[in-house]
């Protein structure tokens, strides 16, 4: 009993950081509709800046002043990011901004590395709160008690700010209807900036306040990212009390998880999220909303046409070039091109459901990695020949997508995205922790292709045929009745249902189809590398695909392929430098600002303006 009580207290203390950071994210999303991937980076900056300040400011007063100043500083950094990076792209297609925030993550990572070095920093103990208190005989750190006391106060003052003040009224109004608030003469740009300041400051505060418990390191940003998204979603987007309840729920459960069921810790919060979303689709205290339907941002998508003779010629020429890579290129080029083709197929499969179906998945890596693991497991445990394993990879991935899709289809918008992420994490932790079968962190090795494909060149041709074939098939599917039905379901559910289209079923099948196509990419991947590790199922992998789809142009058919090829190529060039993340981040941000319609979309527009291709009627 005493132990349980102590654990609840530890959980409550851990919840404060989580709540501080998550409430900032919730505010930012609620008002600006930006899915801010960089929020974890603000949290990390808060920790580092707080640490540095504490070196100068001694004593109890200095400690708490440092925490406050760190929050303030991060808030200002948030303002800089909002003004320089996000303002130029508010008019871009919905969710495009998340690409920009991804670029910000990379930039901040390298800047932090430059400034504070690669060493983990041990946080200073809080002066005056270094001891422990015995409660029911169990030792409880004084600092934990301080945090438990502080958090509800912060929640209350935030709540007061939001519900009782004029600023709060504006923020709430903007959460419900941005356009209306604009029409009433409120300067939206500064409202957004203000909210970004507040949200980022909360993250910075959270980072600094947890210093005595967790210190500061360069992995903090990604480590907290999934957790705060989960908290925001469980609590309900935009609900501060919801975020607090969710943070407590997750933290307390986590403490018990560590104590009684250590294998559960990686996945516990995602299980909780999945359960909550299945029972309450809009989170514990969230209200029904249709993310993604708050007014279409950007131009409507153009009609699509089957490829004309020019495009066919171009594709044929590219194919010839690709076929000649092993003849003229080095072994390195062959391997790089293999990687690029596989990645492009993976991205194209995501684009099929994201671009055509409007189904934003944050967990598409589940099916890429899933396909890869299906193939690897078949080879390892059933001595399956490569040819059959390659065939069964998409079947397995498609089946997984079929089941996961059935559950996720109950939700829409960001909630849908988060549920897909939850299932991807479930799969990842299953693979990660089921060591006897999957090899866990050590992965599975020695999964090589059949002898007739054992050298890189012949395997390259296999990849070329299957990969490019898959990409072209996906492109054709966009022009098929199924692709049209998928777009119809995205464009107008009302009209589609009123003309006999079962929209949820169409979307569900598209999800499964996209999963199967990602499975093909996964199968190709595992045999090209000869090994597979859980990293291929990670959030980062899903984000990679997401980023390139947006970067290439979500409203264009070739966006995913162009984006995928460009990003892989740039990555390959840049990773040779020491601070490649910084450079890549800046490149991504520049592309986002200069080409808000994505690479392909913007190239098309520019060509139309200069008369290189025929103008569409839209521009006349």
């Amino acid at each position, binding site marked *: 009993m005493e132990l349980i009580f102590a654990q609840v207290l530890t959980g409550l203390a851990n919840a404060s950081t989580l709540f501080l950071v998550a409430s900032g994210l919730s505010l930012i999303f609620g008002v600006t509709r930006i899915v801010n991937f960089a929020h974890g980076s603000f949290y990390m900056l808060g920790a580092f800046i707080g640490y540095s300040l504490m070196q100068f400011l001694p004593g109890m007063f200095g400690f708490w002043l440092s925490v406050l100043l760190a929050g303030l500083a991060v808030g200002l950094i948030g303002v800089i990011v909002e003004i320089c990076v996000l303002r130029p792209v508010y008019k871009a297609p919905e969710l495009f901004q998340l690409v920009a925030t991804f670029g910000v993550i990379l930039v901040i990572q390298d800047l932090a590395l430059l400034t504070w070095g690669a060493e983990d920093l041990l946080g200073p103990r809080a002066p005056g709160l270094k001891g422990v208190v015995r409660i029911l005989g169990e030792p409880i750190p004084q600092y934990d008690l301080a945090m438990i006391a502080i958090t509800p106060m912060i929640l209350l003052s935030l709540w007061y700010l939001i519900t009782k003040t004029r600023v709060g009224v504006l923020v709430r109004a903007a959460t419900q209807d941005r356009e209306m608030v604009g029409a009433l003469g409120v300067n939206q740009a500064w409202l957004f900036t203000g909210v970004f300041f507040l949200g980022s400051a909360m993250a910075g505060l959270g980072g600094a306040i947890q210093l005595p418990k967790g210190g500061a390191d360069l992995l903090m940003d990604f480590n907290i990212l999934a957790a705060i998204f989960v908290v925001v979603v469980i609590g309900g987007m935009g609900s501060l009390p919801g975020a607090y309840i969710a943070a407590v729920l997750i933290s307390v459960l986590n403490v018990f998880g560590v104590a009684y069921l250590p294998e559960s810790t990686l996945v516990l919060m995602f299980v909780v999220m999945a359960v909550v979303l299945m029972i309450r689709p809009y989170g514990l205290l969230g209200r029904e909303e249709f993310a993604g339907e708050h007014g279409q941002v950007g131009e*409507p*998508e*153009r*009609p699509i*046409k*089957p490829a004309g003779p020019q495009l066919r010629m171009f594709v044929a020429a590219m194919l010839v070039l690709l076929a000649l890579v092993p003849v003229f290129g080095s072994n390195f080029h062959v391997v790089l091109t293999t990687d690029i083709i596989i990645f492009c197929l993976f991205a194209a499969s995501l684009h099929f459901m994201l671009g055509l179906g409007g189904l934003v998945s944050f967990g598409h890596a589940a099916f890429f990695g899933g396909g890869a693991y299906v193939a690897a497991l078949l080879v390892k445990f059933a001595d399956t020949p490569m040819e059959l394993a390659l065939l069964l990879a998409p079947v397995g991935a498609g089946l997984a997508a079929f089941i996961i899709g059935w559950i996720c289809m109950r939700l829409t918008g960001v909630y849908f995205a988060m549920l897909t992420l939850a299932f991807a994490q479930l799969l990842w932790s299953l693979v990660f922790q089921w060591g006897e079968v999957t090899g866990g962190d050590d992965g599975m090795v020695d999964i090589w292709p059949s002898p007739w494909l054992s050298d890189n060149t012949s395997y390259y041709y296999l990849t070329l045929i299957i990969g490019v074939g898959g990409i072209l098939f996906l492109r*054709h*599917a966009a*022009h*098929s*009745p*199924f*692709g*049209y*039905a998928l*777009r*119809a379901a*995205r*464009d*107008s559910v*009302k*009209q*589609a*249902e*009123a*003309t*006999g*289209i*079962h929209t949820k079923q*169409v979307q569900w*099948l598209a999800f499964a189809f996209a999963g199967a196509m990602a499975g093909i990419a996964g199968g190709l991947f595992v045999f090209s590398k000869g090994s597979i590790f859980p990293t291929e199922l990670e959030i980062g992998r899903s984000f990679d695909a997401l980023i390139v789809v947006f970067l290439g142009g979500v409203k264009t058919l070739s966006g995913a392929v162009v984006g995928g090829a460009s990003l892989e190529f740039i990555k390959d060039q840049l990773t040779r430098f020491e601070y490649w993340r910084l450079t890549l981040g800046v490149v991504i941000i520049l592309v986002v600002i200069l080409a808000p319609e994505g690479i392909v979309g913007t190239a098309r527009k520019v060509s139309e303006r200069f008369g290189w291709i025929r103008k*569409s*009627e*839209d521009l006349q």
Partner: protein
Amino acid sequence: MTRSTEAVLDVRNLSKTFGGLRAVDKVSFTVAKGELLALIGPNGAGKTTCFNMLMGQLKRTSGEVLFEGRDIANLPTRAIWRKGIGRTFQITATYPSMTVIENVQMALMSYHRRIYSLLPFATRLYRKEAMALLELVGMPEQADRHCAILAYGDLKRLELAIALSHDPALLLMDEPTAGMAPTERIKLMQLTADIVREKNISVLFTEHDMDVVFTHAHRVMVLNRGELIANGSVTDVRNDPKVQEVYLGGGTLFAEEAAGEHA
């Protein structure tokens, strides 16, 4: 005009309550074959609620909806559509990312149960049929334009073409002329009336423009606070004192105005 007395749609005691509010209260009526039936009433009378129940977008609280003799009230919208009822919306709903003709082709593909096929090119399917429908509503020259840039009146006509694509026996039109210029309104309703006569289909429509109603409707029903207060020919309904009270507020408005002039 060849109008038989055979009922295409038979609505019996249809009701819908939201909490304590009786939005639609025991409404009963029939729609005859080939009939253009108007459902009018002030804002909030329950017209759209009625429509949504007929088309399956809203669950009824009680009552029956018989279409060609069978109860359809518990079917989902898409199943009701397949039985032969089409609808247009008060606020147009089309697919802005497609061309005009593709919008119609989409409905045709659905009608022919082709939406799950992956192999053919969608643009080549049922193009001729789609073009015929566009000709019917008078916009064949706009077939290959981008739907997102159509004028509002054209969108309304496109919706009509889509709604006609499965050769429905009954068409539900929710304020077909809302938001259009007066001349456009007359044109669209004339077009609808012509199509109805030609194809011998029935139309149930709601409308606020009395010119449109009195010119084209064969019969008029008046809904007020969820209850049907009048049902008859245009002349009967026009002269019905209850209807006049609903629409003119019992004449007090005129009395006040008159009083004002004298003052």
